[in-house]
């Protein structure tokens, strides 16, 4: 499909449609910020109240795997940006390649995350499922780990949805759905992908780095 084939009937032209899609995604991301914001607010309150216990608990996270994952996710943002650029240029093959690459890197992130979760399970550090902690402040260490699991799994859920979304885009690109005139879905999905990365950029220091200084 080229040009006007992609124009929905409620819009006057593709420019208007593009603008609507973009604004829609920004508004959605505002909602997402507030969605994570509730958790960040709770984290901040307890971090201030129980700073010692939180630092202590942070030592039990795997700093190496966390750092690798940060690098992995930033790389995926780069490939996503390449995908959007190639979509704008109308280069179909490169678009598909970069979309697939982004998906793969995202999956690597999830794989590392699952490994981390498995380690936590072996160490009896999963609140509500398997938890035994002998050190000081066991309750508050558990609080920290609740935040760790809720925030990172919510992040992983978003990433999983993102990978699915890119899969659909790659399929549509393969079918020749996009062109240099019509690439709004790629661009808005890119916004979503970068948002997930930014959330991680906040999660990583708050969860992994607070015990290290």
């Amino acid at each position, binding site marked *: 499909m080229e040009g006007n084939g992609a124009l929905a009937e409620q819009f006057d032209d593709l420019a208007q449609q593009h603008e609507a899609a973009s604004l829609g995604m920004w508004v959605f991301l505002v909602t997402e910020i507030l*969605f994570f914001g509730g958790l960040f607010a*709770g984290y901040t309150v*307890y971090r201030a109240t129980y700073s010692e216990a939180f630092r202590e608990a942070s030592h039990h996270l795997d700093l190496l795997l966390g750092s690798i994952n940060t690098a992995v996710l930033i790389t995926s943002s780069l490939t996503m940006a390449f995908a959007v650029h190639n979509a704008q240029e109308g280069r179909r093959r490169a678009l598909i390649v970069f979309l697939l690459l982004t998906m793969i890197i995202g999956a690597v992130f999830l794989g590392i995350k699952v490994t981390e979760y498995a380690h936590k399970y072996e160490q009896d550090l999963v609140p509500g499922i398997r938890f035994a902690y002998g050190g000081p402040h066991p309750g508050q260490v*558990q609080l920290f780990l*609740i935040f760790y699991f809720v925030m990172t799994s919510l992040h992983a859920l978003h990433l999983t949805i993102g990978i699915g979304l890119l899969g659909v885009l790659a399929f549509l690109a393969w079918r020749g759905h996009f062109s240099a005139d019509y690439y709004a879905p790629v661009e808005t999905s890119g916004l979503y992908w970068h948002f997930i990365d930014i959330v991680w950029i906040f999660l990583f220091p708050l969860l992994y780095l607070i015990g290290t200084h």
Partner: protein
Amino acid sequence: MSPTIAIPREHYLNVSYGVKSWLFTTDHKRIALLYLTTITLLFFVGGAAAVLMRLELMTPQGDLVQSETYNKLFSTHGIIMVWFFLIPSIPTVLGNFLVPMMIGARDLAFPRLNLASWYIFILGSLFTLWVIVVGGVDTGWTFYTPYSSIYTNTFVVAAVVGIFIVGFSSILTALNFIVTIHIMRAPGLTWFRLPLFIWAQYATSMIIILATPVLAITLSLVALEHLFGIGIFDPALGGDPILFQHLFWFYSHPAVYIMVLPAMGVVSELITAFSRKRIFGYSFIAFSSIAIAVIGFFVWGHHMFVSGQSVYASMIFSFLSMLVAIPSAVKVFNWTATLYKGSISYQSPMLYALGFIGLFTIGGLTGLFLASLGVDIHVTDTYFVIAHFHYIMVGGSVMGYLGGIHYWFPKITGRMYPEGWAKFSALIIFAGFNLTFFPQFLLGYLGMPRRYHFYPEEFQVLNVLSSAGASILGLGYVVPLIYLIWAMRYGAPAGPNPWGATGLEWQTSSPPPTHNFEETPVVTQEAYAYGMPEEDLKGGR
């Protein structure tokens, strides 16, 4: 102006037939009607719970239902009425129908998303109805921890999931409105030519976008705590139940404005149309909507004056709560000034609008009692609070909603409703409402606490008055249901503009064609150009 008024040959209702043509429609007008049917049903479910509560409270003894049942009744009533009726009411029905029409667009920006919102809404409603059928939830609509997360054995998780899902539906509708209002206005329709209904929808959508996700995550944490026994709000681990209240009211206070701002938008339309006069202070009303949306985010602590929050926080919240009354008062004064020297006609939508102004004023002023620290401590968790917020939500939001339904009924269906019956029911709703809830102010001030199914004998007279009022109010809600359904088929054809109103929605036929306008309208003047020569207001009879 045509001498005989007929229903146009083809319009959005008859363009296609069959269940599929409705369930798969992306027409914002049809989706509005899907919502109308759904929330009307849910309104009567929530209403049924209220009927049982008022029957129980006829006598001081707890003789009709057990206290456990009573707890489930008020929880069901609150949950259904707040999330499944009041919050969706005006945005999803009137907003869906009118936002594109008022701005001269063919549809919302994302029609399929709009339909998806309805399906998500249905899914959330089914969860909640399922909870009611299998045994209910007894936490109240506020789900306070640690009761909701640790102690109750009722269906908290399913109830919370239902609310989480329906929150998504609101968010997607709000997103659709924001984008549509930004991007799809007709040529010449600048921000300050927009009808005030649109400003109100815009402000409401902003609140929904910003507040609802916080509720979603907070209730998710409650569900997790209930399921796994992990405790973000559990004092045994060092968790803080007060944090739950902060997060909950960070959503739920702005939610009050989600419920009442759209009704204010409706009233702005009705007041001008039936006093044949330009609105007084257009930009003040427009900006007061925005001011309410903004300040409304910083007053949540007034729900927590006795929760153990610091006294300094309480003072600041008290001050800010006083502040939010100012833009509300600006609206009331402007509506009143619009009436001044207008040529007022008392048709039924106008009766609802005037009812709104009076009842909302009482609700708002008693809100100031509650925002004052000293008075609040005396009346916290009493019927005074119940009466206060019902004056806002029922006296305000529901009156606005019904006024709007009547006003735009000819546009939606192409037919007029029986005016005599409509006036009759508007009046008995007003009378029944006051008889139901005014005694509750007195009860609360005398010290009757909320959420009990029995009470000392000296409160019986006022409770009987309240229950009697509720029966009148209930009748007032059933009568419009009957005559409006009747009028959909048998009402007299309305013509494009039966009220002689301004606004783009009145410039197209009734019911409108699927794409709303034969050609995209061009706007050359401000909103509410009443007092202009008659021929400038197209159509009418």
